[in-house]
């Protein structure tokens, strides 16, 4: 599945970025946002999204809260913490330098 491979290592960055723009999203909404903002190119698999969310929650980058939806069911929504904002900055600059490097390599070739 090429689409998932493209996400390798950058899922955290995407989730943090989405949450920094739109706080208090639940898991499905995050997945949907990744899909729509990337023009349906990138897709987060459920099987890796939730472990990633939990890992980031334990790391203290995001925090979760249960809310009641209109339908009466509960949903777990996530938002960025201060540590998460810092992490987002770090991940973004790391991504920039990596993609720059890759572009340079591609141009040389």
């Amino acid at each position: 599945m090429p689409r998932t491979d493209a996400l390798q290592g950058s899922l955290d960055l995407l989730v943090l970025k989405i949450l920094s723009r739109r706080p208090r999203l639940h898991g499905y909404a995050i997945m949907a946002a990744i899909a729509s903002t990337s023009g349906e190119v990138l897709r987060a698999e459920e099987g890796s999204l939730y472990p990633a969310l939990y890992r980031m929650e334990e790391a203290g980058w995001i925090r979760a809260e249960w809310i009641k939806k209109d339908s009466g069911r509960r949903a777990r929504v996530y938002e960025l913490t201060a540590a998460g904002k810092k992490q987002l900055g770090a991940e973004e600059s790391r991504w920039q330098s990596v993609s720059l490097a890759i572009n340079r390599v591609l141009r040389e070739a």
Partner: protein
Amino acid sequence: MSWWSRISNAVQGERLNREIEEELQSHLDEAIAAGRDPGEARRAFGSALRTREASHTIRVAGWLESLLADLRFGWRQLGRNRINSAAAVLSLALGIGSCVGAFRLMDALLWRPLPISGASRLYVLTRRMIGLYGKPAEDSYWATPDYKLMRDAASGQADLIAISDADRTDITWSSDDNMEKAHVVYVSGNMFPLFGLKPALGRLLVPADDRSPGIGPYAVLSWDYWNHRFGRDPHVLGRSLDIGGQTFEIIGVGPRDFTGTETGTVTDIFLPLSMSSFATQESVTWHHTFLMLKPGINPATALEPLRQHLSAVSHAFEVGCATCWRGVPQASIDRYLHQTLVFSPAGAGISDLQKDYRRSLGILGLLAGLVLLIACVNVANMMTAQAAARAQEMALRISIGAGRRRLVQLILCQSALLALLASLLGAFLAAWSAPFVLSRVNPPANPARLALPADWRVLLFGFVLMILVVLLLGLLPALRASAVRPVAALKGGEDPHSPRRLLRGAIALQVAFCFLVLFLSSLFVASFQRLQNRLLGFSTDRLLLLETVSGKGQLPVVWNQTAEALRAVPGVESVAIASWPLLGGIAINSDISINGAPPSPTPGWFLDVSPGWLATMKIPLLGGHDFRPQDTAPGAAIVNQTFARTFFPGQDSIGRTFDRATNRYFPTPGQYTIIGVTPDVPYRSLREPSRAVYYVPFDEVDNHSAPQTVEFATFTVHTETQNPLALAPSLRKLIAQRHNGLRVSNVTTQLDLVRDQTLRERLIAVLAGFFAAVALLLAGIGLYAVLNYSVLQRRREIGIRMAIGSTRAGIVRIVTLDVFLMIAFGGCTGVALGFGAAHYVASLFYQVKPTDADMIALPACAMLLTAVVATLPAVLRALRTDPTQILRTQ
């Protein structure tokens, strides 16, 4: 946040799983609502279980979750056999509680530093020498002038502090006429500043209060005394109190936790050293001398030169002391001066209670520890048996991939649970037992008092003990269980002998410990019995003792008239006077010389008694007659047999004369003629061998025949009523109403004095007996369990043996032979250990030797009897084995 959430998630594992489930489900709902195909959406998750597992492990602390699971499993294991588990917890609790209780007492009495600054720099000065009767002796009392010389000599490197014993003294508060008792201590003025103590009220004594005799009539109360006597009344400052004819003004209250330096006694009142009349006398050694190194002085290098220096200073003082040696034979002077000065660490305070109870408490701690070990062996046996029974389960766990660490953890969890429960229960026992034992240490009228806080020292000890117990219990079964080889176990058991070998070792160990406990206990119980049953030679029946004082002293005639008045009271049978009671703790000696010869090497001990005292005490006369009312001292004397034998060997002593040599107490010589001989009776203590004792008339005259005043004496009242104490209040009142200066300072009975002599022996005997009973019970239970288990294990073997014609005797032999071999082996080890331990506490025994045949035979019989009773059920079970049934089921 994250650690905490992982830990709390581990505790609430089920809830966490539900939450993850719910979130995934809500995700699916959204997906379906957004128009995705339900089947496709569910497939997108992959295996739901795997996602959940992956999510779960991220959100919990794994080690904690497995630990909790093991604890739950261990708890269920314990619950499966409630009686066994309860017995295990109970026996461990008894052991742990006793150990912690013993530790609390020992720590409080021997090790806990005084609540002062620089306790680790505090030493006490004693001198070691060869004492009377050629035995090593220690003297920790010093004369004040000697102390001052040493203090000045040491001033560069250390400070010397003088502190007297906390004597129970008669005091009178100015506001009322009633006399009461308080523990009064004389201290040098530098004590409070050097100890870094701050007053709770007013001010404390300073060096200026102590500079010269009589200038500091000030008293400092201890916080404890201020609290219980005055209810922390701040107006106590400025009040005055009378001690021995001197008036003191209260100037302050000491800090809350400082109770003096005499561990076991709480000091009530501190007075300046120079206010004591002894402080100016060269010849009176009466207070302790402490040494506090100045901060920054290295004890390793500084102490020894300092010791030699002070030793030389003190020696020069004593050699030059003219009044010290008046009338003392040269041999005694030489012996005394040939002494070694010793510095001993005194950071925990010093007291006679420490000397008396150091070894006793040590031995009680040892007994408690042994009981704990026996209990541990029992429980470890139980767990080994359980582990053996679970060998197949363990093998299965290993086969499906459980790590060996996890298996060790599983079993250690179970033993930790046991130890924890036992520790909790034991804590209650320790909380109760230490004060209980302490309350029985001293006579009820003057109880020993120690702070017994449950602070970090006690908690740390308890915790370390618990860890040790966990390891003792669990390590062996855990290692055994984890060493299971799955192939062998699943095939149907490996070497069937290995657990039995282990259990046999346990039996030997247990028997050795148990025997040691029994052996020591029987020594202590026998000592106590022999001491208690010692023939006194005098009556203790209905004897009331009124210890009476008279301030500056009253003439004998006043004392005799008071005795006469007491005789007239209804219910009084007879009244006599002695200067102090027998076994009252007082002993005064003098050198004796016969026909003007130099004094003998051993002294004579005396007691002033009125006519009729011997009859009141029911001490018979072996020859001669009692004092007559007109007899005075010097003049007539009645001696005991040891006196007659020592000074007039092989002769009839009646009619002979001897001289009481002059010394600092008897400046005038006196000659005595022996008019009677009595049997030996215990003089100061029940334990010591008979001393040479002479009784002299209560009426003393000086060398001009003028009567001498008497400052204190004891009225010995024989009552008609069964309880002599019932008469005490009225007699006390009668003496006070006569207004002749006599006042009763203490009331007791001769029976109580005798009982007080055996308090320590009674306490040790009772506790040792208790530990012996527990040890025997536990060892019996252990034997029973081991043998029962081994018979169950060897069912098949026994069945086969029976089937091929083994006799019943043969079966009994194979079942019990090795057990009794182990008992014999353990017993021998126990005896060897016992001799070692008994050697250490030999000073506590009375007329009992570890090598006495009955001291070994008694524990051996008890052990053997227990073993027979404990093995009987297993033997019967073995004999009832039905071969056909066994062979069919196997």
